[in-house]
């Protein structure tokens, strides 16, 4: 290319994080903690529900983490993190007052505007509730703008349930149909047992006006999508959020690519009709 056609760029690059302070840490389960952060420059994160950030623990590295909180709830933001790698383990060792770096928010979140006026069927498997929670909060905060709201949530066992307080609140609400299941019960468990697709039996879904939002592990997608298609939903109203190795977050490094698409740019939220052409997606 003629070098004169190249864009002029800010030397304060796309790779420089903003500093954020850890305000609060809450233990969710044995493996997950919920972290509340605030950007040090005082600005709100400005995320759309479903977007992710790149979190730096300086000296350890950077990791993509989806934002769990809704932009409708104040200037702080929350990240629910499972300790699996170096960065997330380092986060788990942090105490309030510590500083991290934040880049983003990145990616395409959930199309909240297009969802307005429709029924919403949330399906969360395991950690899938983490990104989904940002959208659930947004929808509940604008409850009057949406039709029927159904939340289906499944985990392997009861000890893995996240956001227990909130689950109880959803359960108590009259304007939300909340159902939960576990693959394997323990003595205390009184609820449904079975994989998440068992919740679909007899589930009322109006195919003309419902958006299904599904987030979970890769294996769950195939089965749950089959269920919602069976309910007559068009592919364009089935939304999923994909997990990939979004190393740079800015569409360069190539790690998150599925077929011809960079997940950090076109995703992580996709409609099922988009995914149909991406053989590597699920």
């Amino acid at each position: 290319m003629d070098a004169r056609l190249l864009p002029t760029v800010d030397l304060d690059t796309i790779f420089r994080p903003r500093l954020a302070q850890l305000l609060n840490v809450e233990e969710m389960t044995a493996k997950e903690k919920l972290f509340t952060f605030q950007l040090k420059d005082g600005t709100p994160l400005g995320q759309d529900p479903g977007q992710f950030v790149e979190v730096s623990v300086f000296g350890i590295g950077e990791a993509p983490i989806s934002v769990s909180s809704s932009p409708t709830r104040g200037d702080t933001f929350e990240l629910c993190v499972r300790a699996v790698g170096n960065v997330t383990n380092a986060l788990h060792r942090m105490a309030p007052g510590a500083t991290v770096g934040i880049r983003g928010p990145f990616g395409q979140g959930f199309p909240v505007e297009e969802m307005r006026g429709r029924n919403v069927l949330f399906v969360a498997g395991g950690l899938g509730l983490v990104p989904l929670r940002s959208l659930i909060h947004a929808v509940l905060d604008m409850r009057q703008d949406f039709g029927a709201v159904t939340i289906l949530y499944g985990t392997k066992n009861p000890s893995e349930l996240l956001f227990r307080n909130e689950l109880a609140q959803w359960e108590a609400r009259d304007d939300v149909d909340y159902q939960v299941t576990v693959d394997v019960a323990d003595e205390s468990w009184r609820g449904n047992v079975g994989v998440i697709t068992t919740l679909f039996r007899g589930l009322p879904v109006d195919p003309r006006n419902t958006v299904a939002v599904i987030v979970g592990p890769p294996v769950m997608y195939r089965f749950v999508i089959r269920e919602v298609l069976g309910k007559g939903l068009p592919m364009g109203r089935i939304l999923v959020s994909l997990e990939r190795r979004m190393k740079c977050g800015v569409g360069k490094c190539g790690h998150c690519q599925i077929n011809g698409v960079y997940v950090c740019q076109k995703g992580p939220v996709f409609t099922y009709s988009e995914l149909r052409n991406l053989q590597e997606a699920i």
Partner: protein
Amino acid sequence: MPLKVIEKRDVEPLIRHLMERFQVVGIKKKDGKNTYGVIESPAELRLDSCATITSPKKYFFPQRETLLQFAVDGSWEPQAVVEAQPRIIFGMRPCDIAATWMLDMAFSEVNADANYLEKRKRALIIGVDCKEPCDEYCFCKSMGTLEVETGYDLFFTAADDTYIVRTGTPEGEALLGEWGKAREALYEDRVKLRAVQREKDERFKEALEFDVEELPRFLEDSYRSLLWDVLGEKCLSCGSCNLVCPTCYCFNVLDEVKLNLSEGERYRVWDSCQLEGFAKVATGENFRERRGDRVRHRFFRKGKYMKEMFGRFGCVGCGRCTRACLVHINPIEVYNQLKGGE
């Protein structure tokens, strides 16, 4: 842009002149092969050699590059690091000029990458035309990169005792102007240039058995071909093909701290989609675990995805990946087999 002429014997003084103001890099010998390196004396520069081990992309996108300096405890604002210096790349081949176009797109689309673009913008590219194919592995003619119209500041084509020089930018023209020894091309020079180009074109053969524009369709149709499994059995997953490729730009990002454990830097380093861990996420899931799937991904990137993203093929036909492949995975053969399996 004007056409100029330089006597071959004046090239050495030209390089000497350029070395006074710029770092000049070009093709040098290394253990009997060619690599791009900094020219210490004009005699080192080999304008007639090609087929370098890796491409000159390392001058815009180095193997390892610092992106950030930080305090481990976040006590000061992390500082972005962008290093660039004025530089002339003397002797870039048409295929590498075409590859640079691809990188320009990749690093300026959506999120402009200052680390690449600063280096790129401060470099002047002096292209040198090929006379004949490097070897049986290059297939630039089939990929449409045998000739380049833009992407250089100057472009040299050898003709008898002269180089006929196309100027691609005002900067290139100014470079020659201030040196002062290039003359305007005459009518005879234009005729000569056309003759040289014609002869060159004849010496390069088509390697693909089909029009390359059909390649994305062939690929799409063979997504589930057994060929990928066959190649996967052979592939060593050593990453060499990506690392020598002039258009590959995937990278990894890592932190390194100083021994005082209080400050450090973040850097990026070349990566390869053929390596097993490339698409692995923190939870351990590997989204491209099978070797054959990774091989397919590379060919799809070169022959389809990049074309869809940027409008041109990700492969420029330089043949470096084939030369570097110990198990003889050769895109010419792969693409022709895809066609045969139609």
